[in-house]
């Protein structure tokens, strides 16, 4: 009887230890890991990685579809942090960029609202037929507003 209790207790202890080691060593599950990767990304939602936002890119990185060097706004720092988190080799950034902020030339703006609708973080204020402007504190520099502008009045300027 005593031996049986001891054996069971020993097995339970070993299993517990094994589980705790596994929890520490292995990521709990893919969803958590995607969240962790997403936390390291700059959240510009610029889609320069080829995915429609930061979270989809995070999911692709975790599933192995995307390399970790596809995020230009994050730069080398983000690559190093991702490499560290995922235990992969750091890679050189595909293209290097400097942080930018969008700027609307207000004399040329015709108030078409196309850029406003394209902004992923609602950083453009404006109404139909009225001049638009950028909330530069909120602008992530993703450049998604540049292409839709019919009169080319949006410039990307380096952050000073």
């Amino acid at each position, binding site marked *: 009887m005593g031996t049986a209790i001891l054996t069971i207790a020993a097995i339970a202890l070993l299993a517990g230890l094994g589980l705790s080691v596994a929890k520490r060593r292995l990521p709990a599950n893919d969803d958590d890991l995607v969240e962790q990767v*997403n936390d390291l990304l700059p*959240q510009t939602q610029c889609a320069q990685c080829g995915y429609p936002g930061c979270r989809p890119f995070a999911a692709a990185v975790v599933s192995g579809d995307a390399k970790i060097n596809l995020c230009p706004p994050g730069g080398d720092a983000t690559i190093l942090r991702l490499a560290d988190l995922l235990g992969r080799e750091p890679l050189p950034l595909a293209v290097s960029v400097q942080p930018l902020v969008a700027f609307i030339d207000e004399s040329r703006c015709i108030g078409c609202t196309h850029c406003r609708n394209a902004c992923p973080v609602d950083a453009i204020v404006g109404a139909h037929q009225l001049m638009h402007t950028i909330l530069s504190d909120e602008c*992530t520099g993703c450049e998604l507003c540049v292409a839709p502008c019919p009169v080319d009045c949006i410039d990307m300027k380096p952050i000073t």
Partner: protein
Amino acid sequence: MSAPTYDLGKLHGGLRLSGNKSESTSQSIVEIPIPDQLILPLHQHVGDPAQPIVGIGARVLKGQLIAERPDGTLGAPVHASSSGQVIAIEPWPVVRRYGDSAPCIVIQCDGKDEAIPVAETPIDYRQLAAEDLLSTIVKGGIVGLGGAVFPTAQKLMQANSCDIDYLLLNGVECESYISCDDVLMRERAGEIVSGAQILMHALQISACFIAVESDKPEAIRALADVLAKIDDERVVLRQVPTVYPSGGEDQLVQLVTNREVPSGGLPSDVGCLVQNVATAAAIHDWIVNGQPLISRVTTVTGDGVAKPVNVRARFGTTVANIVGYAGGYTDRAEQLIIGGPMTGKSVSTDDVPLVKASNCILVLSEAPSPGPELPCIRCGDCAAVCPVQLLPQQLFWYACADNETKLREFGLTDCIECGCCDLVCPSNIPLTAEFRVAKGRMRELADEKARAARARQRFEARNQRLEREHADRNAELSEQKDTAKRAGPAAIAEILKRKQQSDKDSD
């Protein structure tokens, strides 16, 4: 009369530095005349820059408000130091930690020094409620004159939300060469004590320690004389040992009250509020005489000036002008430092104006090179002298590796950048400079993270909004469809007929 001695708390580490103060204390404070031009930076304090409220061409009077603190921000207003005309608001070289120039209001002085009229019967602060007194202090442009330039009124307001037991007036001035507080205590002890009484009234407390380093017997005597005369038992004079950096805010609290300010906390967390003695005098000038903060005492010293002296100069006077009144530069002058040798900042031009933070203008001959930087030998001397009880050698390790987690864990944010570790390091490692850079990187990273979190929040909010709009639209469409279905073919025919009719009318 000598000051009574008390049991004091102990300061960990610290260094005994050579004072080099006697050169500048041999004569009394020299008044610098009004310069031709005053250059007044809008940002002379911790917080946000002040907003100019005068335009180019405006005539201003001495003591007139020329830039105000934007509502709801941390900051202090700026007043004109003399009368004259505003000729420009433009960037000018200034002393700052980052960047070399900042927007300044430039005033061409007319030499008349016409002051803005002061109310004939000065307000008696004892009749004012604490809040009213505080809101008066806000308008005086007063900031901490020990060098940290934190807006005094806001420091008091913050302290008023905590339980404060003691007001500490800091007359320690532990850094080498600087003696402006020493001579101020010798010459204006009465005003300092009066300032302490005003501060106690604003804080609604009744205990004040004036802490003075033991190497300033004249200042101690002057203060003791004043205290004996006014017989206010709430104010007590305390001598503290001559150790650098006993004048650091947290260090002084520890020394005088034997209470330790917690990591990341403020002296108000342990019931103390620290103000510099010069700040107390400035509060007296503003509350009793109606004179806002427009000038300060500063030490002009070092082996690069002919006659080291303490001067009272108006803010906006250029350093070049002030050095002229200290006998000018000697042939040996090589480097110009604004502030003390340990915590000051070197500047490349003497065109910079005197600002609220400038407690010392130090001109030195070329410093003997400390020798090349060598690898850390883990001797631990730096840990022995660190007044905050950090482990600089370990922090250096992590700073090189850019390991933010470990830097935080080892308390880098508590480093007061006193420079003691630099001085004792046998390998000549510029530890403090490394720590400053690492702190900057930590701040940047935190900013970046906050930005990303915000962008993410906005992105998610936008997606939710789009979804909601989409759902609303769908609901509306299906409702319309339902209505049409319910009305049946007869109603649809009716509508079509009306449409045809209106088309015909418009033709």
